[in-house]
């Protein structure tokens, strides 16, 4: 369960002064559901997810994940979360297995549990062919699988995906979307950010539209279609964000 309560994040920039990257965002994401955070570049998606993953601390508001507060208990929150984004790279000089084991140990797994968990994941994701290969020698698809294995090693109840398919080819992107669905089917709470409408339609139980740091609309895809009297999700998105749209460079 994820519960964002008035999450806000302000940054200070010498040239542009104070920037409100995220402004009073609240939403709830339940177990066994996928919550999609839909927004353009610079809308505040990544900052929101980074606050949920406790990589950044909120300036105002808070979020509670699996009963743990992101400000008060960040380590417990992170132990409950698997965080995957295109920015979460792999250690190039570690093998796929060493990398997954490293994160398993950081999550407090004992050695027998870790070994069993790693074997299970490597079998499930069909990774045994490259488990001893260094990460800098892996193909993009292999790297994505290794990243998935890293987020799964401690079997977290909450999964956070920040634009996980950006820059990936169709086949690798399908691996990721299949994995996101599998997480939901296993009863995990899933939140992911994207600006790809088709991904939202295919995956999300609930959609939140974010622009200029504000959550402008929320609901199921059907609810949004009814509310804005449009079938095409892209048109709906444009209708919602246009009054608030400020080009990212102008911000």
């Amino acid at each position, binding site marked *: 369960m994820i519960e964002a309560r008035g999450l806000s994040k302000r940054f200070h920039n010498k040239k542009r002064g104070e920037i409100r990257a995220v402004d009073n965002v609240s939403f709830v994401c339940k177990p066994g559901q996928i919550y999609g955070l839909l927004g353009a570049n610079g809308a505040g998606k990544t900052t929101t997810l980074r606050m949920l993953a406790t990589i950044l601390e909120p300036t105002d508001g808070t979020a509670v994940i699996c009963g743990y507060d992101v400000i008060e208990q960040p380590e417990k929150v992170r132990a409950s979360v698997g965080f995957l984004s295109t*920015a979460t790279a792999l250690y190039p000089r570690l093998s796929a297995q*060493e990398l997954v084991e490293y994160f398993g140990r*950081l999550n407090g797994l004992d050695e027998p549990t870790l070994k069993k968990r790693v074997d299970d994941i490597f079998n499930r994701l069909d990774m045994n062919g490259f488990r001893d290969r260094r990460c800098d020698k892996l193909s993009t698809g292999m790297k994505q699988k290794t990243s998935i294995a890293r987020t799964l090693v401690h079997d977290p109840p909450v999964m956070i995906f920040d634009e996980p398919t950006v820059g990936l080819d169709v086949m690798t992107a399908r691996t990721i979307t299949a994995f996101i669905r599998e997480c939901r089917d296993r009863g995990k709470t899933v939140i992911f950010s994207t600006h790809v409408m088709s991904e939202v339609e295919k995956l999300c139980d609930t959609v939140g539209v974010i622009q200029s740091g504000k959550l402008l609309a929320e609901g199921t895809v059907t609810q949004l279609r009814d509310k804005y009297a449009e079938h095409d999700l892209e048109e709906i998105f444009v209708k919602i964000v246009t009054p608030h749209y400020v080009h990212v460079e102008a911000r």
Partner: protein
Amino acid sequence: MSLRNIVVVYKKELLESLRDRRTLISSILVPLLAFPVLMVGIGELASELYMEASHEPSKIMILGGQDSPDVLDRLTKVKNLRVVPASPNYIDLISNKKIRAVVELPPGFQASAERGEHLTVKIYIFSGDLKSTFGATRIEKFFTEYRDERLRRKLAAEKLPEGLMNFLEIKQQNVVSPEKVAAETYGGFIPYIVILMCMTGAMYPAMDLTAGEKERGTIETILSSPIERTHLALGKFLLVVTASLVTASLAVISMGTSVTLLSRFFPSHVEGEGLPILPIHFETVIAVFIIAVPVAVLFAAVLLAISLFARSIKEATSYLTPLTFAVIMPAVAGILPGIELTSKLAVIPILSASLLFKELVSGTYHWNLIALMFLSTSIYAGIALFIAVKMFQRESVLFRS
């Protein structure tokens, strides 16, 4: 404080560092090979050049002396001296190394010498040029023998003992052990090397573990794991300290081995110049290592904090390069003569270590100053580590764009 997590991070960083060619080169290969190459290679080269210069005949010129044919005749017959015709542009010829030295005889030299009058022979040289010095030495030797021969004849004529020529000999006698003399003469190089290697060994790992993580995009990956940032900082810090101490230790071992091998296989290189060998005892090595710990801690913490601020290894390099000069200056103080460890200097970081290393190498132990240096450097190291750990908790540093 979870020691387990710190150890997990440390082991992972160690594994990655051992697989990194650049770390292996800067932390292991350079300190191991630098000294044999420098000492044997450059020593051999210098020796070759010296031998060549000592065997080469010196081209010299004589100014004046037309009224002293005997002296001129004998001078032209000196082995390894080749006299060229006099020329008014002799200064240019010396400057351009066409000739090595010029000797100027005063008018009536021979007659005045017979009468026992005071005479001055001037030798013009190119100061600092080895071959010019050899030429001047050969000329000086000739005139010293000429003077002694005159004097010996005079004494014999007056029936005076030959001992009068040198009846008062003034001699300086060293009363300090050769080990201390060696430490005073060139023992300062050891602290210089230890300090420099502590810095060099820590530099690349510090950059790789911080700015390198940002550059490779792994900083967000590790920050999304449950490890506390303090533990992450401490795990990385311990690896940088290890690299620093390993590099410094390898440098000292390599230096000691090179001197031993050099003295065994090329004894003339070490003893020929009259320099005593500096024996490095086991307890001295241990003492130097113990004192090097707070120095390595200080460097590791400072380098980590600065590197973490950088967005890339390239940017970190531009920050750390000027720091190298700030470290070299006090480290060089150990080589300078006359500077000794006092209670005031014992609280100046790096300089205190440099001077203390020099004392330890010579076998001098001023326990109060050792304690003061250890305490002050530990405090500075602790402050630097505190700042480095705090930096790991600042978003503006970790996600600087």
